[in-house]
């Protein structure tokens, strides 16, 4: 919940022309009511900018001719919407029964330890001090037959172990190193 102690960050995002074009395309999918595009636009914003800010709420409200509260009520209701940036790599581990029986809580603890994700960012999310990694529990990911289930951004991992985590970390470090070479 976004309470008085945890307001939306003001945000300085500047949506570009491509972002707006995609937003208009989304709105066209709801010919009966523009308000239906509220959640899709919040997804669109979060995908582009990482989290939902005050700027997001105002921009989308204006786009859909709604009041900002109509967006804020969604932000405080739907667990997938974030009001703070997650780590550059965000591990989402399934908390619910079948995955718990398969050791997801142990996996969660090991990821926290491995990534140094010690500080709480609210909503059960833990972030490493440098903001590089975060880990959070999510409820049933509908992959119970291949538990434990885990997500990293859009990728879904089944039968996840700490080795899966190591591979993800190694891959991201390798790609960051490559980026560095290219930039250099």
């Amino acid at each position, binding site marked *: 919940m976004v309470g008085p102690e945890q307001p939306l960050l003001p945000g300085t995002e500047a949506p570009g022309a491509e972002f707006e074009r995609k937003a208009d395309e989304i709105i066209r*999918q709801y010919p009966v*009511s523009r*308000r239906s595009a509220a959640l899709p636009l919040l997804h669109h914003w979060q995908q582009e900018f990482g989290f939902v800010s005050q700027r997001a709420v105002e921009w989308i409200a204006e786009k859909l001719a709604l009041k900002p509260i109509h967006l804020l009520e969604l932000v405080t209701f739907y667990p997938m919407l974030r009001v703070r940036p997650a780590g550059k790599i965000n591990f989402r581990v399934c*908390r619910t*029964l079948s995955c718990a029986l398969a050791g997801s809580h142990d996996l969660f603890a090991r990821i926290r330890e491995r990534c140094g994700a010690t500080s709480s960012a609210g909503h059960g999310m833990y972030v490493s001090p440098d903001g590089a990694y975060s880990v959070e529990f999510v409820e*049933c*990911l509908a992959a119970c*037959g291949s538990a434990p289930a885990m997500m990293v951004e859009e990728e879904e991992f089944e039968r996840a172990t700490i080795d899966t985590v190591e591979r993800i970390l190694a891959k991201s470090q390798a790609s960051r190193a490559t980026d560095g070479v290219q930039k250099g």
Partner: protein
Amino acid sequence: MVYRKVEMAEIGSAKGPTGEHRIILRYADEPDYTPDIDCYLRHGGYEQLRKALSMDPAAIVAEVKASGLRGRGGAGFPTGTKWGFIDHAKNRKPVYLLCNADESEPGTFKDRQIIYKDPHQLLEGMIISSYANHAHLAYIYIRGEMVRGAQILERALAEARAKNLLGANILGSGYDLDIFVFRGAGAYICGEETGLIESLEGKRAYPRIKPPYFPAVLGLYLCPTIVNNVETLCNVKHIVEMGGEAYAKIGTRNNTGTRIWCVSGDVRRPGYFEYDGGAITLGKLLYEVCGGIRDGNRLKAVIPGGSSAKVLRAGETYRIRRANSEGTMEEIEMTLEDLPLDFDTIAASGSMSGSGGIIVMDETRDMVECLNNLSAFYAHESCGQCTPCREGALWMHKILDRMAEGEGRPEDPQLLLDLSGQIAGRTICAFGEACSWPVESFVAKFREEFEAKAAQERKEHERLQPAC
């Protein structure tokens, strides 16, 4: 279809031959089967749409009624009856069709297989169903976490549009339809059909009170709306193909067609399996198909239909009243292992087959911990609209959590039962039942374990839920 005894050697994985009768998942796990439209067309895809478009919409509804198809999302409501609620002679409003792909009942992962591996089967079922119900706009409400699934569906929709299987004047029939994907954002309550509608209208997913808000009367944008589960809509395609009467011969009376069962938890080989209604018993599924309980342990408890279903305890027997082959009623005694997997027998055992999600717990499991895990889910997922559920779900979780922590009080088991009894039936939607049935059944059936735990001194012990 009679259940064929499965030889252990045959069972490699969930994908191997397991004596299943796959209709919905017929191609899904074939090695060369891909989710693109060309592959689907090579496998006879969209032939049933052509056939359906040459039929009168009312004739399709009649076939679905004759098929006996019951909804696969959890409630098992007859699909044809649901469709029949809209009186097209009188209705002057637009009709919408919504596919409920919010698959979020813990233990359930069947719709995922269809969406990710065979999306066009869902689209074909949806287009036929939309045509049958005079809908010209339809949405697939997919849970937010299935980002890849949403992308697969978007691609499939674009492919279908390019081939005029969607859009204006589909295949020259004069029928127009468009379908869009709508992503949820992590709220379980969106699987409740009126919550789903509110969410799709851009609001918090607060379920609506029925009456008056029956979706068929006052659904999306207060227009008549059909909401069907992914697996249900896929079945429509096969009903058009084989005819309602032939479809009704699959499975048993009132449990027609196939069902996909999802097995997770403490079995050697978890997975998803499609069988004719009532064609396999719980025992055969767990011990032969899934290879038995892991580590050679003994079975302790089974949740047969998603986490909201009441738990069944190993060693229980049930007196089941059912129609025999002559059609007369008989009462027989069955063990847990004897229960045939269908809607009616599982209901008669005091639980429900719900969404087909079977969660298995072995003898090493602490029932207080297991229930506490589920109660945390319900406390988190209550939408907060009705006081008994919002407060009760959280209260039950707090009690269970203190019991799991070793800080329980002797009166806690009874307090849990008292609380759960005051939620079910006192809320706008079925979440009240969903959150109280697990508590009611776990505590009643494992009372001695809950009482022992409540009396236990605080001590360090292994927990499912780390104190974080």
